[in-house]
């Protein structure tokens, strides 16, 4: 008896032919409609979401973002996150005080000729969105994730709203086009591009905004 090879019977040949015809028809339909075959939308796993969150965290804790997410009565500036000069203070609404508002200097766009960064409605994030402690130490990934997903602290934003915030908020977008310093040098950029940041946020949201466990 020969092993490994069995000559197909007539019934088997017929079903194989049918299968090949169906496949050919499928490709023909795809070609005719111009549509692209997408694999099934696999649910994003928690592990994927946590990995995406770490990417988001890397942007949130960059100076272009965290300088305005302080726990203190003042913003920070510069890559070394020193206290903002000119004695500017937070004020009751995070926009400064009457004769020294954020918009006293910061306009709706970057002023590269004078080295002033700018975007619409320049202001501090509320204290509920502080991402560092009172000693200016950056909070942990778990702590910031916890704060950012706490709807009692984040202006009642769910995952979709967080994604929208990361995609559309002018002050968030500014971080990726922060303008030039007075000496003409470009301000340093976050570790992700804007598109990468939005993609990571989307993946994190799709996974249900998981947070690392507090150690």
């Amino acid at each position, binding site marked *: 008896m020969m092993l490994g090879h069995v000559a197909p019977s007539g019934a088997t040949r017929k079903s194989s032919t049918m299968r090949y015809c169906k496949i050919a028809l499928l490709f023909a339909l795809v070609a005719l409609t111009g549509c692209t075959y997408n694999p099934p939308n696999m649910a994003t796993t928690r592990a994927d979401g946590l990995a995406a969150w770490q990417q988001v965290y890397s942007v949130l804790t960059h100076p272009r973002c965290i300088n305005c997410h302080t726990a203190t009565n003042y913003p920070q500036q510069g890559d070394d996150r020193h206290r903002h000069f000119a*004695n500017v203070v937070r004020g009751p609404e995070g926009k400064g005080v009457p004769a020294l508002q954020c918009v006293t200097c910061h306009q709706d766009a970057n002023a590269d000729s*004078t080295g002033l960064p700018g975007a619409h409605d320049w202001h501090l994030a509320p204290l509920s969105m502080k991402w560092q402690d009172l000693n200016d130490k950056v909070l942990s990934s778990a702590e910031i994730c916890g704060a950012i997903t706490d709807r009692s602290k984040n202006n009642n934003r769910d995952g979709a709203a967080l994604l929208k915030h990361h995609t559309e908020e002018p002050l968030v977008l500014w971080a990726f086009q922060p303008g030039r310093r007075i000496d003409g040098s470009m301000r340093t950029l976050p570790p992700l591009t804007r598109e990468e940041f939005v993609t990571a946020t989307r993946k994190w949201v799709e996974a249900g905004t998981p947070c690392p466990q507090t150690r």
Partner: protein
Amino acid sequence: METYKINVNGVSRQVTVDPGTPLLWVLREELKMTGTKYGCGIGACGACTVHLSGVATRSCVVPISLVGNRAVVTIEAMATDPLGRTVQDEWVSLDVVQCGYCQSGQIMSAVALLKSIPKPTDTEIEESMGGNLCRCATYVRIREAIKSASQQLKR
């Protein structure tokens, strides 16, 4: 070079300058309005303070291209502004001024403060005025003049 129309103290003015020219230099060099002073050029001292649509603004760091159609008000207009005149009178009454260089900015900031908070506390005065530097250290008299002007206000 581009041409800009700006409203300064209620008058429409036209200038042709580089878009990146700070408003301070447009006022001083193009419009010959030298009441607003240059102190640092980086928004740190407040000597260049004007009002843009009522907001105290550091004119040395705002390029003319970002002014838009916002009304510019300078120290030159304070004599005819009821609150500005009150502040100036108290500045004179309490002999606030020494060299005088920072005082245009001090008065513009004080007027902005009193327009927003007619009866400011000492803390509110210090926070709002804390960005206006005075090398002659007239701070004590500045604070007293603001409080005195506040008492004159009919609100």
